[in-house]
C-alpha cells in the first residue's frame, strides 16, 4: 500500500467497528431520511430543508430591501420632498444596499446551491449537512442583528460600503456602524461555510461516472463561484474586523494622524466588492445555462466555451476592484491597469452570452415564464454590460462618478444579471420546492410588470445621471431637468414592485390551488427531475450511473420506469445510516461511501452561542460574550466528537465493487473541506499582509519610525514554524499507519509546537506599542490572527490525542491526522511568514 492509497480494514461484518456506530436499526430507508416534525424540524440538517430556509429567508429580506427602495424612490418622486428627513434617507438607502447585497443575493444563491447541488450531481444530501444548517443559522442571526438596528434607532447610515473615516467612532458615535460590522461579518460565516460545502459537494459526491466534463453546467458556475467566495470574502472580513477593532479598542488602522490610510479600507472593501458582483452573477448565469437548453430542446451550445468563460471570469473579475476607486487620486498608471482588466473581463462575458444566443438559435424556444425571464435577463444584462465597458474607461468614469448613471449601470447589471434569472429559476424549480406548478398566466403578468417597471425606473437614471444628478442626495431643487425623469423612475419602481407582489400572491395561491407537477414537468435533461417532484425526504433510492451530460435525454433506462426502480449504487441500506457515494474529483469514479449525519441540534446551539457572543459585544456585556463563545465551543466539541466509521468496506451495489466508508485519502471530502478552509484562511492572512505592505509603501515615514519586533524571538519563531510544518508532514504519514498509540506523540508534538510558536511570536511583538501607529497595529493583528489559528491547532491536536487515548480511534480511522496535517502545514507557513515579517519590518528601535 502506498501513502496515497486509502487505509481500509476488510473485516467481517460482525466485527465491532465494521457497522455503524450511529445507525438506526429497525428504521427503513424512507424513515431514516424523514425530516423531523414539529419543533424538532429545527434540528433538521437535510439540504432540502436548509435550502428552502435560505430561499425563503433570502426572499423575505428581498421584500424588506425592496420596500426600502420604494421609500427612496418615493422621497425622490418630486423636488424638495420632505417625505423622509435626510438622516432617515441615509439609513434607508444604506440598509437597502446592505440587505440586497449581503442578506438577499448571496443567501439566495446559497439556497439554490444547497437545494440543487445534491439533486443535480446524484447525491442524497449535501456533503456537510450540519455545516449547511450552521451556516443558515449564522446568516439568520446575523441578519436579525443588522435589521434590529432599526429597533434601537441605530440603523447604519454610512452607505453599504461603510467608508472610513465616516464610519469611525469619531464621525459615527452611535452603534450603527457596529451593528453593520458585527452583523454582516457574522452573516458572512454562512457564505464562507457555503463555499467550503459547495466545493466539497461538487468535487466529491457525484454520481458514479459523472466526470467533470459530464457535470451539469451549473456545477461549473457554482464551483467557480465557491472558489471566488473563498478568496473574495476574506478581504472584507479582515477589513470589518480591523474597523471594528479601531472602533472598539482604538487601534489606529485607518487613523491618518497615526499613519493609517482610509484608502486601505476602500482597497479591502472593493477587493471583496467587485468579485461580489460576479459571485452574484455567475450562479444566475449558470441557472440560465441550465434552463435555456430545456426550453430550446437542445444541449447548451459550446459547453467547453462556457467552462472557459466562467473560469476566466472567476479570475479576471479579481483584477477590477480599483475601478470603484478611480476618483480617489490613485496614480493614473494604476487606474489604467484596472481599466484594462475591466475591459478584458468583457471577453469571457461575451463568449458566454454568445453561447446563450447560439443555443437560442439552435431551436424554437418554448416561451414559458422562465424563458421570458431568460430573455429579460439577456436584454437587461447586455445593456448593463455595455455601460460597464463605458464606466471602465477612466475619463468617462470620472465624469459619471457618483452620478445616477452609475446607479442605473449597477442595477442593470445586478437586477438583470441576478434578479431576472432568479425569478426565472424560482418559476422553473418551484415544483422541486412545493410539488406544484405556478400559474403561467400570472407569471406572464409578473414578467411584463417587472420588465416594463424596471426599464422605466432605471433607464431614466442613465439620463438623470448624464444630466448631473448625484447619488445619495435626499432631495433636489426643481428646474434642473431632473424632475420628470425622477417622476418616471419612481412610477417605474412602483410597477416593478407590483410585479413582485403579484409573484408573492401567486406563490401563496399555488400552494393550495396550483396543479400537481408531473415527473419532469419541463422536459429537462438534468438529474434533479429524475423523481416526481412531490418532495420526499430522500433523493435517490439507488444512485444511477451517469454516461451523459443530459442523462434524462440520453439514458432511456432512467425515464422508462418508475424512479424508485432505477438501478444504481447504495440501494441496500445495510447499516441504517444516511449515506451517499463519494467519487474521484476528476473522473467521477466511485471512491468511497460517505456517511452523513442525522438530524441534530448541534448546529443551532453552536450558531446561537456565536450569536450571543456577537450580540453581547454590541451591548458591551463581555461576560455574556464569554458565555456565548463557551456555548459555541461546547457545540463544536460535540460536533467533532463523533465515533468514526472509517476503516470498513461495504458493497457499493455496482457489480462486485466494494468501497471503503469515509476513506482515509487526500481525495476524501473532508480533506477537500480542509483544503477549502485553508484557502479561505490563506486569503484572510494575505489580506492582512496586504494591509501591512500597503501601509509600508504608502506611509514610509511611519514604517521607518515604528520600532521593530524583537529579532531573536522572531528568528526562533521562524525555526519553530519549520518544526510545526515537519510535524504536519509526520501527521500526514501517520494517518496511513496501523498503529494508533504512537501517533499520540505526534498529536502532542503538534500541540506543543503550536503553543511554542504562538509564545515566541508574542515575545517578539510584545515590545511594539499597538497604539503607536497603524503599521504597528497591523503587526499585532498578524499576531492575533496566527495565534487564533494556533489555538485551534492546539485544541484539535489535544482532541485527537484524547480520542486515541480513550480508545475511540482504531486502525484505519486516523483521517483526522490527515486533516490536521494540511491545517498545520498552512498554519506553520503563516506563522513563519509572520515571523519573517517581524524580522524584516520596522525602522529605528
Amino acid at each position, binding site marked *: 500500500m502506498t501513502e496515497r492509497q486509502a487505509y481500509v480494514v476488510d473485516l467481517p461484518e460482525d466485527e465491532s467497528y465494521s457497522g455503524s456506530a450511529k445507525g438506526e436499526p429497525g428504521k427503513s430507508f424512507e424513515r431514516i431520511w424523514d425530516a423531523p416534525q414539529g419543533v424538532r424540524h429545527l434540528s433538521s440538517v437535510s439540504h432540502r430543508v436548509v435550502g428552502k430556509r435560505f430561499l425563503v429567508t433570502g426572499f423575505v429580506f428581498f421584500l424588506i430591501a425592496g420596500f426600502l427602495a420604494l421609500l427612496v424612490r418615493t422621497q425622490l418622486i418630486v423636488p424638495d420632498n420632505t417625505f423622509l428627513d435626510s438622516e432617515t434617507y441615509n439609513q434607508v438607502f444604506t440598509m437597502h444596499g446592505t440587505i440586497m447585497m449581503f442578506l438577499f443575493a448571496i443567501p439566495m444563491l446559497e439556497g439554490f446551491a444547497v437545494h440543487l447541488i445534491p439533486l443535480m450531481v446524484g447525491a442524497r444530501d449535501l456533503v456537510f449537512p450540519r455545516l449547511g444548517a450552521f451556516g443558515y443559522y449564522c446568516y439568520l442571526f446575523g441578519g436579525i442583528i443588522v435589521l434590529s438596528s432599526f429597533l434601537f434607532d441605530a440603523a447604519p447610515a454610512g452607505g453599504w460600503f461603510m467608508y472610513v473615516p465616516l464610519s469611525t467612532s469619531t464621525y459615527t458615535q452611535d452603534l450603527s456602524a457596529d451593528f453593520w460590522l458585527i452583523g454582516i461579518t457574522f452573516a458572512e460565516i454562512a457564505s464562507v461555510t457555503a463555499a467550503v460545502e459547495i466545493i466539497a459537494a461538487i468535487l466529491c459526491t457525484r454520481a458514479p461516472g459523472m466526470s467533470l466534463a459530464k457535470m451539469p453546467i451549473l456545477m461549473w458556475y457554482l464551483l467557480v463561484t465557491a472558489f471566488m467566495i473563498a478568496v473574495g470574502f476574506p478581504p472584507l472580513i479582515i477589513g470589518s474586523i480591523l474597523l471594528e477593532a479601531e472602533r472598539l479598542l482604538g487601534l489606529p488602522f485607518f487613523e491618518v494622524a497615526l499613519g493609517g490610510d482610509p484608502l486601505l479600507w476602500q482597497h479591502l472593501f472593493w477587493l471583496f466588492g467587485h468579485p461580489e458582483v460576479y459571485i452574484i452573477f455567475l450562479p444566475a448565469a449558470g441557472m440560465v445555462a441550465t434552463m435555456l437548453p430545456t426550453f430550446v430542446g437542445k444541449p447548451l451550445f459550446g459547453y467547453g466555451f462556457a467552462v*472557459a468563460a466562467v473560469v476566466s471570469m472567476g479570475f479576471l473579475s479579481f483584477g477590477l476592484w480599483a475601478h470603484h476607486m478611480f476618483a480617489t487620486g490613485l496614480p493614473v498608471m494604476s487606474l489604467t491597469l484596472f481599466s484594462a482588466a475591466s475591459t478584458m473581463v468583457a471577453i469571457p462575458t461575451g463568449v458566454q452570452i454568445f453561447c446563450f444566443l447560439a443555443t437560442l438559435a439552435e431551436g424554437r424556444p418554448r416561451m414559458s415564464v422562465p424563458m421570458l425571464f431568460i430573455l429579460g435577463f439577456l436584454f437587461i444584462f447586455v445593456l448593463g454590460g455595455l455601460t460597464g465597458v463605458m464606466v471602465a474607461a477612466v475619463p468617462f468614469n470620472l465624469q459619471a462618478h457618483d452620478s445616477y448613471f452609475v446607479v442605473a449601470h449597477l442595477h442593470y447589471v445586478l437586477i438583470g444579471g441576478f434578479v431576472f434569472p432568479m425569478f426565472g429559476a424560482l418559476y422553473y424549480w418551484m415544483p422541486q420546492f412545493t410539488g406544484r406548478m405556478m400559474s403561467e398566466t400570472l407569471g406572464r403578468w409578473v414578467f411584463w410588470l417587472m420588465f416594463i417597471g424596471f426599464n422605466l425606473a432605471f433607464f431614466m437614471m442613465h439620463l438623470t445621471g448624464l444630466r448631473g444628478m448625484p447619488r445619495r442626495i435626499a432631495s433636489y431643487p426643481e428646474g434642473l431637468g431632473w424632475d420628470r425623469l425622477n417622476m418616471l423612475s419612481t412610477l417605474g419602481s412602483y410597477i416593478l414592485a407590483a410585479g413582485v407582489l403579484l409573484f408573492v400572491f401567486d406563490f401563496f395561491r399555488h400552494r393550495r390551488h396550483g396543479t400537481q407537477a408531473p415527473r419532469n414537468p419541463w422536459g429537462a435533461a438534468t438529474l434533479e427531475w429524475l423523481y416526481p417532484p412531490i418532495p420526499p425526504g430522500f433523493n435517490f433510492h439507488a444512485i444511477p450511473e451517469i454516461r451523459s451530460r443530459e442523462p434524462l435525454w440520453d439514458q432511456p433506462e432512467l425515464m422508462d420506469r418508475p424512479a424508485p426502480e432505477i438501478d444504481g449504487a447504495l440501494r441496500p441500506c445495510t447499516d441504517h445510516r444516511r449515506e451517499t457515494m463519494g467519487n474521484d474529483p476528476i473522473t467521477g469514479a466511485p471512491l468511497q461511501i460517505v456517511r452523513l449525519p442525522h438530524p441534530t441540534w448541534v448546529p443551532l446551539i453552536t450558531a446561537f452561542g456565536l450569536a450571543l457572543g456577537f450580540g453581547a459585544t454590541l451591548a458591551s456585556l463581555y461576560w455574556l460574550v464569554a458565555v456565548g463563545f463557551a456555548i459555541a465551543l461546547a457545540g463544536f466539541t460535540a460536533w467533532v466528537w463523533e465515533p468514526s466509521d472509517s476503516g470498513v468496506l461495504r458493497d457499493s451495489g455496482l457489480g462486485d465493487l466494494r468501497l471503503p466508508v469515509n476513506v482515509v485519502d487526500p481525495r476524501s471530502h473532508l480533506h477537500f473541506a480542509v483544503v477549502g478552509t485553508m484557502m479561505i484562511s490563506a486569503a484572510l492572512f494575505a489580506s492582512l499582509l496586504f494591509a501591512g505592505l500597503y501601509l509600508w509603501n504608502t506611509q514610509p515615514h511611519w514604517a521607518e519610525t515604528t520600532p521593530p519586533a524583537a529579532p531573536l524571538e522572531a528568528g526562533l519563531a521562524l525555526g519553530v514554524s519549520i518544526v510545526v510544518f515537519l510535524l504536519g508532514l509526520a501527521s500526514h504519514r501517520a494517518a496511513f499507519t496501523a498503529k494508533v498509540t504512537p501517533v499520540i506523540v505526534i498529536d502532542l508534538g503538534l500541540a506543543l509546537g503550536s503553543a511554542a510558536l504562538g509564545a515566541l511570536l508574542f515575545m517578539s511583538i510584545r515590545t511594539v506599542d499597538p497604539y503607536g501607529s497603524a503599521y504597528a497595529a497591523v503587526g499585532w493583528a498578524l499576531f492575533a490572527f496566527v495565534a487564533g489559528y494556533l489555538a485551534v491547532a492546539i485544541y484539535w491536536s489535544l482532541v485527537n490525542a484524547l480520542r486515541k487515548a480513550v480508545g475511540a480511534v482504531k486502525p484505519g480511522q486516523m483521517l483526522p491526522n490527515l486533516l490536521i496535517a494540511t491545517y498545520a502545514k498552512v498554519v506553520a507557513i503563516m506563522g513563519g511568514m509572520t515571523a519573517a515579517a517581524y524580522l524584516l519590518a520596522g525602522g529605528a528601535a
Partner: protein
Amino acid sequence: MTRLTYAIAKPVLLWALHFALIYALISAACAPRALLTQEVLVVTAAVLTLTAATLQIFWLWRTSSNGDSEPQSSDELLLRRAAWWTALISLIATLANLMPVLILPGCQG
C-alpha cells in the same frame, strides 16, 4: 483528464500572478516610497510579460494539437477546448496588463 483540468486553470492563474506583479511594480514605482524608477518599471514589466505570454502561447499550442496523438474521449476533447479558450483569453488579458506601463510616460500619465 487530470492534466487537462489543470490546463484549464493554469493560464488564468498565470494571468492573476502577472496582474499582481504588474500592480505591485506600479505601486512600487508610483507610491510615496518610490522604490523603482520608470525605466526599471518598464523593463521589469516587459520581461515579466514576455515570460508569461511565452508560456501562455506554449499552452495554447499544446492544447490546440493532440501531442500524444492517441484517440481522445469526448470528455477529453471538451476539456481541451476549454483549456484552449482560457489560454487565449488569458494571453490577451496578460498583454493588456502591460499596456499602461508601455503607453503612459509616467505614473501620472
